[in-house]
């Protein structure tokens, strides 16, 4: 921090141009981000539409960083797979076995992003392509579906889309991401936010068995199915990590959202399940 401050007088001269000031501001924000300081209020955010979660995040999901979402839908137990004759996995994606990204929730967040910003919604990786009949028309007309063969192609496509000024949300299959690649995505998101039209909402879906892997994501979320009723499915959402926000007690970082079949909305269930029992208890304990 100090070394940067020492450099300041060179940049802040009366002759400093607007672009210099922008670069300086970006540099300061990068340092703040690295130091884990309170996220600056200037960072653009996309409200999730869930009041409690928005409050915990300081206004919504930040645009200058990536957010990881872990789906718990592992292709079930070994016994089930044997019974299925090996057809239990999802064939759409590449290697890595069967898992399903929390697409209903990602669809909701992408839809929120399209309401706030102009630009394309890019879905990277065939596994992350929601079925078009489940998508609202206005979201579908702005969606670009990218299929990739290899993990390298996926990461390249994520990097490229994050730096593009004409994109408002990226939802990508990020299974098998290493720490270095995760940092690359994070840097691309920060670069896109600094120079583009304010950045894109970057949502990376990962299988829950990769929860223990290191990553540079600003937030990490765990989604578990919970409390189904006749109006629609529900999920418990755990905020596993949130950089730049004061720590809160663990049970205050779990919420339940519900999808309503009739309206297609995903809304927050007001009461916290952690207090009224273990209805939405995930089968596995949290490790990250």
């Amino acid at each position, binding site marked *: 921090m100090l070394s940067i401050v020492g450099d300041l007088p060179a940049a802040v001269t009366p002759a400093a141009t*607007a*672009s210099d000031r*922008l670069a300086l501001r970006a540099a300061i924000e990068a340092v703040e981000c690295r130091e884990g300081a309170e996220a600056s209020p200037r960072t653009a955010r996309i409200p999730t539409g869930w009041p409690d979660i928005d409050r915990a995040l300081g206004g919504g999901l930040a645009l200058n960083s990536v957010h990881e979402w872990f789906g718990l*839908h592992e*292709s*079930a*137990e070994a016994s*089930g*797979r044997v*019974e*299925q004759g090996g*057809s*239990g996995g999802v064939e759409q994606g590449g290697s890595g076995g069967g898992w*399903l990204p*929390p*697409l*209903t929730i990602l*669809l909701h967040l992408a839809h929120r992003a*399209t309401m706030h910003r*102009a*630009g*394309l*919604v*890019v879905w990277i990786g065939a596994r992350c392509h*929601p*079925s078009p*009949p*489940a998508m*609202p*028309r*206005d979201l*579908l*007309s*702005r*969606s*670009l*579906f*990218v*299929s*990739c063969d290899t993990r390298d*192609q996926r990461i390249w*496509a994520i990097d*490229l889309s994050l730096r*593009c*000024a*004409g*994109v408002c949300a990226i939802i990508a299959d990020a299974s098998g991401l290493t720490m270095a690649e995760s940092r690359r995505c994070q840097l691309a998101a920060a670069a896109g936010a600094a120079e*583009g*039209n304010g950045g894109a909402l970057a949502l990376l879906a990962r299988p829950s068995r990769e929860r223990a892997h290191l990553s540079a994501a600003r937030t990490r979320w765990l989604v578990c199915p*919970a*409390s*189904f009723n006749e109006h*629609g*499915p529900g999920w418990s959402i755990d905020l596993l990590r949130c950089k730049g926000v004061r720590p809160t007690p663990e049970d205050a970082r779990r919420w339940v959202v519900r*999808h*309503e*079949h*009739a*309206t*297609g909305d995903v809304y927050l269930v007001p009461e916290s399940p952690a207090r009224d029992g273990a209805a939405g208890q995930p089968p596995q304990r949290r490790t990250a």
Partner: protein
Amino acid sequence: MLLVRTEKRRRVVAFCCARAAAAGARPGMPAAEAMAVLPTRGERAEGVRVLPARPDREAALLRALAAWCSRLSPLVGLDPPDGLMLDIRGCAQAHGGEERMLHRALSGLAALGFAARTAVAPTFGCAWALSRFAPQPAAIVPENGQRAALAPLPVAALRIEAATREALAELGVTRIGEALALPRGALPARFAPDLLLRIDQALGSAMETILPVREAARIAVERGFDGPTTQAAAIELCTRELLEQLCAQLTAHQRGARRIEITLDRADLEPARLTISLGRPARDPRHLWRLIRPRLERVHLGYGVERIALAAPWTAQLRHEQAERWREAASDAQGRTSAPDASRAADELIDTLANRLGPQRIRTAEPVESHLPERAWMWRPAMESPPRMHAADAPAPTDSDAPAPGERPAVLFFPPRAVHAARLVPGNGDAPVPARLLWNGVEIDHVPAERERIACEWWRSARPERDYLRAADRSGRVLWLAYEPDTGRWFVHGVWA
């Protein structure tokens, strides 16, 4: 040879060759009559070829001939269906005089297989008349000699309409000389206005212009090396410079490339060809270079590259952008990119993705009206139908018949996964309720009674109809189950993941 067209359900001769014309066939006469006058049998063994007239192909041929004629004069106009007008003002000297120029044109066209009739005259109208109605195939009219040259020709040579011609024939006027002798003041009142105009054009007292055919300029650049080189840096630098020249050419023509072809001539190997396709016309060297460079890096150079050629075979109109500098300044001040820039960035993203991953892998989805959930949309390459940038651009939903998006699962399986069902017990109604459903080893309970029956459209292949229902398994996942009453099988078609 006869070219025959169908006119009001009659077959009419559109064109005929010189030999058929000598035998008495004329354009416009019924085909049967022309066949009758032609000596098909007896003294001539080869007979007559009768082909249908194809106006589009004839027009294309005329256009090609116009391109050929551009060696005689830069201004070549089309005179459909069968004529070309050349403005040879100042060109005759280059060919050694009008006579030699005509000879050159006739011999050149004859070498191509065309029997042409030509005329050089001070006015287009006069040249038109002489080329069609003069006895000799190459007529030359000296300056101010129009009146004398036209006088013996029939009035049809004036390019007047049939009604005007008939009106003149009623007066006994058949030659142009007689028409010219009529009192000029009386002409507009008694005849259609085209007569006076055509007379003036033929004599040169009224202006007539032609619309010259412009050949689409081939936008291409190339550079050869002294000897084969395998230095990747030199090849890259050279390609980059050529690309900038190409973009300068595109700018000069106000066009943008839809496709760019790069040819690297390699020593002892066949040329390497790279093709870059673009979703929208583009001529920004930076963007194009980003697309070309990864492809160029992977080219096998062999024993060396001798020549690099870049061409833009498919271009589209792209106007100049006036305020590029202004926009840059504005985006600096606000720290935000303007809407056109964002839209262009999105186009460039699609181009870049499609050129690396393949155009079929970058897609958009278009809703299709179908009851079957797996047929409710169609994939389209994003290069052809790019996604929209704003919600306001989206088309209003037209079909209220389609199910709400919330009623369809976010994940749909292809094909539906079979579910292990055990011990069916007859339930209420005719649909049996299974005692136990297992999917991936997890038991499905909460099987509701209400079902949505989706039948295949009758005009499609016979797929058994299915009853769909939303059920939850023991872990809380909500599945979209399908039951086939005909076969009694259960499937998982989708998941609300």
